[in-house]
């Protein structure tokens, strides 16, 4: 598992986000595009790519993309 890969996957799925604009320290909820739909997209992506089931609470407990990545690794 590699965080750079994860970031690439997020950028691809978010569509509105430009390539190479996300960093491990990015607070994903502060992105101007962020909406409840994006939360669903993260949950679905993580389910499919990493076979990890995140809850809404899991997502809320994370601030940055790096937090999110650490949580996924822990739950795997």
């Amino acid at each position, binding site marked *: 598992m590699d965080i750079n890969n994860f970031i690439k996957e997020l950028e691809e799925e978010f569509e509105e986000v430009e390539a190479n604009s996300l960093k491990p320290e990015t607070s994903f909820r502060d992105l101007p595009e962020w909406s*409840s*739909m994006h*939360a*669903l*997209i993260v*949950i*679905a*992506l993580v*389910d*499919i790519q990493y076979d990890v089931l995140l*809850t*809404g*609470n899991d997502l809320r407990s994370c601030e940055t993309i790096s937090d999110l990545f650490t949580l996924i690794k822990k739950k795997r």
Partner: protein
Amino acid sequence: MNLIDLSNKTILITGASAGIGQGTAKLISELGARIFITGRDIERLKKTFDSLSGTGHQILPADLSEEKGIEILTKELPELDGIVHSAGVIKPFPVKFIGKKHIDEVFDINLFAPVLLTSAVLKSKKLKAGASMIFLSSISSQHPYQGGALYTSSKAAIEAYCRAVAQEYAHKKIRANCISPGLVKTAMFKETMNAMTEEKRATYAEKYPLGYGEVKDVASAIAFFLSDASRWITGANLQMDGGLSINHL
């Protein structure tokens, strides 16, 4: 005289281990029905069982997502005066990620289980003439929400199916009706709320002039549809949503 008298009626409730199924079991036992409750979680079914009034009720654990589970359950059932199909799952999933696995997960329980159970009880003649079947849909089958593609389409399908059953079995006086609630305070409700931002939660609450539904509100409507007070109603879909659709949709 009690208009909604269910004494001498034997009713099967699926998904009785939680939410609307659980609340319905409790209420209709108070109205005199003898109840068979089914679900996957035996511990939680026991809790429902302990909340029931009257005697003669039974727990029949079964996994309705498998045909074998339906077959075993049907064999164990007595002749029924009614079925409440309240087992259901909700799994928010964005459209572009939906795969066969996710369709199966939602449709197995929300559509295939009630359809196959209906076939099984009809084939084995376990539904008495005059029996009543209630299918649980949702207001969201008509009014979608983001991430709800699978849930809402499974509910739209059950509505159409219910009307077809009503038509085919009217000659036997077997009735089939749907109930489409808005948001009702259950564990599923908590999940839905958890998935929303605080802002969205507040605007959502405002859309319900009569507030969110309680389990008992839906259970009361189910009791009516099970009773002879509704003997002239079949193929209907009762939308109950605290005024949501008159106000904002």
